[in-house]
């Protein structure tokens, strides 16, 4: 039964990873609005690029 001394820390480590993922999800605001993302999923992005982001991208390219 000595294997328990290895398995217990392993299981706690695994559980800790899930807890970490949960904390990240809460911090990034995923639990605050559970309705809009489901609607957002259904719509396509228009073809043209985000003007501000496009600008940023070009400046990156120049650098």
């Amino acid at each position: 039964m000595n294997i328990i001394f290895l398995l217990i820390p392993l299981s706690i480590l695994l559980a800790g990873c899930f807890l970490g993922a949960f904390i990240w999800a809460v911090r990034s605001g995923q639990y605050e609005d559970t309705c809009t993302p489901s609607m957002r999923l259904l719509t396509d992005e228009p073809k043209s690029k985000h003007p501000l982001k496009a600008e940023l991208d070009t400046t990156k390219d120049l650098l």
Partner: protein
Amino acid sequence: MLETVSIRTQQSHGEQCFHCGEPVGKARFAYESKAFCCNGCLTVFQLLTENGLEDFYSMSDAAGVRITAPVGDGQFAYLDDGAVRGKLVDYSDDKITRVTFRAPAIHCVACVWLLENLFRLKPGIAEARVRFLQKEVAITFDTGRIKLSEVVALLASLGYEPELKLSDLERKQSSPTSRRLWMQIGFAGFAFGNIMLMSLSSYFGLDAFEAARFKPLFGFISLALVLPVVFYSATDYWKTAWRSVQQRSISLDIPIAVGIAALFAQSVYDVIGGRGDSYFDSLAGLLFFLLSGKLFQQKIFDRLAFDRDYKSFFPLSVTRCDGEREEQCSLSQLRVGDRLVLRHGELIPADARLVGGAAVVDYSFVTGESAPVEKNIGEHLFAGGRQMGGTIEIQTVKEVSQSYLTSLWNQKPFQKEKNGTLETLTNQYSRRFTKVVFGIAIAAGLFWSLSSSAKAINAFTAVLIVACPCALALAAPFALGTAQRLLARRNIYLKNTGVLETLARVDHVVFDKTGTLTASGAGEVRISGVQLTAQEQQWVAALAHDSTHPYATRISETMPGSNATVRSFSETAGCGITGTVSGTRVHMGSRMWLEQNAISVPPNNEAGSHVHVAIGSVYRCTFILTSALRPQTAQMIRRLGHNATLLSGDNEKERGMFAPVFGGAEMRFNQSPHDKLSYITELQANGRTVMMVGDGLNDAGALNQSDVGVAVVENVNAFSPASDVIVSGDVVPRLDKVLQFSKQCVRIVRWSFVVSGLYNVVGLAIAARAELSPVICAVLMPLSSLTVVLFACGAVTVAARNLRENTTADRPLEISADKAVRAPVRIFAEAAQ
């Protein structure tokens, strides 16, 4: 707002606006073979297509929002003022600004898509995120490139004008606490699951075997896991319990906090002393269930938050006239002596003197009098009136906060927060409960102290542990929360669950006639007098179509479409409209106004609202507009019997219409808001619990005074009056069922208390004998919580079935009456049955 809905249902023209889906009238705007109802809609369409956002129209039918008023230059300029801006934005530095607006017009997936692609329409906007349920949009923009006023103007030009109200300025809503609550639940759930894993050996009685070796290890790991639960997840319970101890009041949080403390202390003592199993699993599970119940309640509450603050009726800005220049300024910047310019439909923000223009003021908000009052230059204007007609200039004589209206609302009855006095069911029970539990704990401790001190301590803590009122705390939130959710699905929105408890006690219902019992837009339009020729009908239709007055809208709906053009159109608010069609002068309006224009009108005593028509300055005929009851309303009032009262601001002319419905119940006419208020106070003084059903605007005072104020609106999403309950118009005939349902809900909560009480009796019997073990605790606690939650939610769902339509015993009668009213035949027909 309200009219647009009724027009949509009543419309008879075939063509619909490509942008907003409203019927396209005579003033048709065509572009690329598509028809638009107004220039505003056309402009938005062009703006979207030019910027590659034409997909908007393929997402849902009539996705657009009708542009009711064009955005004027500098209309929102006051938002760039430092003080106002600072209060509106969430974050701002010299690079970016972040601001959150509530835009009630958000209604479909296309709205979300359009708003989130806002950056394509205006360079300088970095990002926009919509929160659909809250109808909020958070916008981040480049501070240097675009101004706050431009962002608001852009939203308004698309039809999503944000709500900018005085209350927004005074207190910015704090960010939701749900993030913290989620985190607390996460930790509790994490600890709950893992500690159960550690406790498996004791659940299955494996201690006798090899598992005994691991016992100390499992104990210390559990202790480590439970620490964040006790010191982070449970913080709210510690705080509230401490606060109620300080205030010397007993709330349910005290026994919960004591239970948690006893569980923790006993377990730490056992683990460190190596004496056996711990109660850590029960502790983590307890908090997990408690916090989940709290989250459930908060989720429902967040969705339905609306305030009863009178200030939300007031606009945020007014047009101040400074010599030659006009500027927009916020209400809080208004000083005594400022000259203001008020346009058609704008509110008088403070007591003022009329200095220019012809004022026709609608005081229905303050006095309930529906006829507008004419005022001459130099006369005093009270705050809260609405200017109808042309532009006027006024000079304020009092501060905004000192005006008559505010003083009316500052009267004591309005100030009192009703829920403060309302003793909630749970607190009522917990007071007795706590005393009993402490009594039993001390008694058990004393009894066992005679034989063994160890057993005495065990019995004392065990009683506190097992009596922890987890199930009791969950019963009310789950039962009432489910009820609130089910009601919301049926277009009945409660301010909070406390309202349901008050609803259950309601024994008198007061109706305000306007817009509550009668359906807006329904009813009959008749012509009394000479019938019009086809050509004359065309002229009248053309003239009526050019006005937005509800009467004119209803008349034009009954007339054939017309393509005649109206020249020199003019509308005198509260009086009538006139214009020249095909070279003939046509007048439509009130008797007084026609007579002022030297047209004699023959007397007419028929019931209903009259619109007289004169063609070529000679009287031709009268349109009689009657209102009809909502379907099935008469049955509902009969079921209420003598516990219903009708209070109406209108004149006695209406009595004949309502007498057959109300039977012996009381009806009062010509009631001012003050009369309505004192009537309700009188009922309350006689020990009645009063529910007032009004349209939310005219009777705000009485609505507030009543125990439950119900506002009936046609468009639930776009309206937030001062009331406890908001219902959509079609619910009115089922209001008595809502009352029944709330009574059942309260009964269900009481039964849940009994169920949780039974568990407590069993648990206490074991605990008082000093025989409670962690395993018994681990079974008993979650079991009691789950049973109570399932019972509460299940029973409420079953009870809510009665709220559906057509489920009553008097079904045949209802159906026939239903058809009769929808025909639409007037209320007399119903009386004849």
